[in-house]
C-alpha cells in the first residue's frame, strides 16, 4: 500500500494548523473585542467556509490562482510560484477553508473571560501584550487546543477544495481523501478501505483526545 497520500495529508494538516495558530489567535482576540460593523463583515467572510460548498470555494480559488488571471500571473512572474496544482496552493486553500475552525472557538473563549481580569492586570502596570500572554492566553488553553485539533482534523478530511485546485498529482497534491476517491474509481476497494480505515482511526483518536483533555470542562468541547 502506498502511504504517501496519508503522509501528504498529515503534512498539509500540520502545516495548516501551525500557520493558523499563529494568525488565527490574534485575529480571534481582535474580533472578540468591541463589536463594530466592519468587524462583523470580516467575521462573516471568515465563517463562510463553514457553510459554503467546498467546490464553490475551490472554484473561486482556482480562478484566482490561475495563470490567466492577474493574481496568479503576478505570483508566477515575480516569485515563480504556481498555486494551481501545487502543494503551496493546497496550503493556502486549506488556510482559508479551515480558518473558521480555529477562529470561532478561540474567539468565543476570549469573549467568555471576565473583562475584569484584564483590567486587574492593567492596574498592576502590565501592558496589553503582557496581559495577553500571562493572563488571557493561559486561561483559554483548552479552547486553543480544541481549535487546533479541530483544524487539524478538518484539514485532514478536506476533499472538495483539494480536488478543484490541487487535482491528483501523486506526491504533490494527492492527499488521502483523494486517494480514496481514486481507488474507488478504479474499483480497487481494498486500497480504498485501507485509506478510509486509517483516516477513520486518526480522526477518532483526535476527537477522543479532545474529549479526554476537556473532561473536566462543564460544556461539550464542541459547543
Amino acid at each position: 500500500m502506498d502511504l504517501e497520500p496519508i503522509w501528504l495529508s498529515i503534512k498539509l494538516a500540520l502545516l495548516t494548523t501551525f500557520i493558523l495558530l499563529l494568525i488565527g489567535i490574534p485575529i480571534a482576540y481582535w474580533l472578540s473585542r468591541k463589536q463594530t460593523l466592519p468587524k462583523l463583515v470580516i467575521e462573516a467572510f471568515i465563517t463562510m467556509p463553514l457553510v459554503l460548498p467546498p467546490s464553490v470555494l475551490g472554484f473561486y480559488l482556482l480562478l484566482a490562482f490561475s495563470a490567466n488571471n492577474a493574481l496568479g500571473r503576478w505570483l508566477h512572474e515575480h516569485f515563480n510560484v504556481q498555486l494551481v496544482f501545487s502543494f503551496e496552493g493546497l496550503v493556502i486553500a486549506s488556510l482559508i477553508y479551515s480558518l473558521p475552525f480555529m477562529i470561532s472557538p478561540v474567539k468565543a473563549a476570549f469573549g467568555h473571560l471576565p473583562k475584569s481580569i484584564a483590567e486587574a492586570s492593567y492596574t498592576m502596570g502590565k501592558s496589553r501584550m503582557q496581559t495577553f500572554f500571562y493572563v488571557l492566553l493561559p486561561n483559554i488553553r483548552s479552547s486553543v487546543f480544541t481549535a487546533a485539533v479541530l483544524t487539524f482534523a478538518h484539514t485532514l478530511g478536506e476533499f472538495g477544495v483539494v480536488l478543484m485546485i490541487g487535482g491528483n498529482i501523486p506526491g504533490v497534491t494527492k492527499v488521502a481523501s483523494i486517494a480514496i476517491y481514486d481507488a474507488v474509481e478504479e474499483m480497487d476497494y481494498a486500497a480504498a478501505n485501507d485509506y478510509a480505515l486509517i483516516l477513520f482511526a486518526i480522526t477518532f483518536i483526535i476527537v477522543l483526545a479532545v474529549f479526554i483533555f476537556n473532561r473536566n470542562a462543564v460544556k461539550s468541547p464542541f459547543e
Partner: protein
Amino acid sequence: MIEININKQIKTYKGVLELKINTTFQSQSVTRISGPSGAGKTTLLKILAGLITPEAGMIRVDGSVWFDSVKKYSKHTQERKVGFVFQDYALFPNMTVEQHLRYGTDDLAYIRELLSIGEMEPLIKNYPRQLSGGQQQRLAILRALCTKPGLLLMDEPFSALDQQLKTKMTGSLKTLFSAQETTVLLVTHNEHEMSEVSDLSFEME
C-alpha cells in the same frame, strides 16, 4: 489631594443615567464612599483607575493631571499606579496565590508580609478555585497591594469576610496604609460598615 469634576453617562436597563461628580478626596487617608446601588460607586472607582473614560471633565491627583477632556488626555491605567480590588475579585484562574503576588512584585519579603496580613501563608500553592470565597477576597486585596499603589481603590472589599477576621485584617491594613502613605477610596454598601477604618466619608446619591 484628588480633585475630580466629571460627567459620565451610564447606560443601564432603566435608560441612560447621568453621573456627575465634583468633589475632592484627601490624600493619605481612607475615604469611605457609600450610597445606594446604582449610584455609580463602582463607575467612579473605574474612572479613577482609567478603566472607564468620562465624557467630560478633569481629574487631578496631587497636582498632576490624570484626565482632561478638553485636551483629550487620559493617563494610561498602567501609569496611574493604582491598586484595584474588584467586586468580583477578578482573580487569575491560571495562577496560584503566590503567582498572583509575584506577577506584581519581586520583593519576596513584602510578599511574605502581605501573606501574613491576609493569613494566607498555608495557601500559597492554591489556585483560586481551591480557595473559599473569603480567601479569594483576601487574595484580591493582597494582589491590589503588591504593587505598593499610591491610590488604592477598593470595591466592597470585605463583604465576604467574617467580623473577627475583618477587624484583624483592617487593623493590619491601616498600619500598612500609613507606612506606605497610601490614599484609599473604599466603596461600601452599608453606610455604617467600615467606619472604624475610615477617616472620611463621601455619600453618593
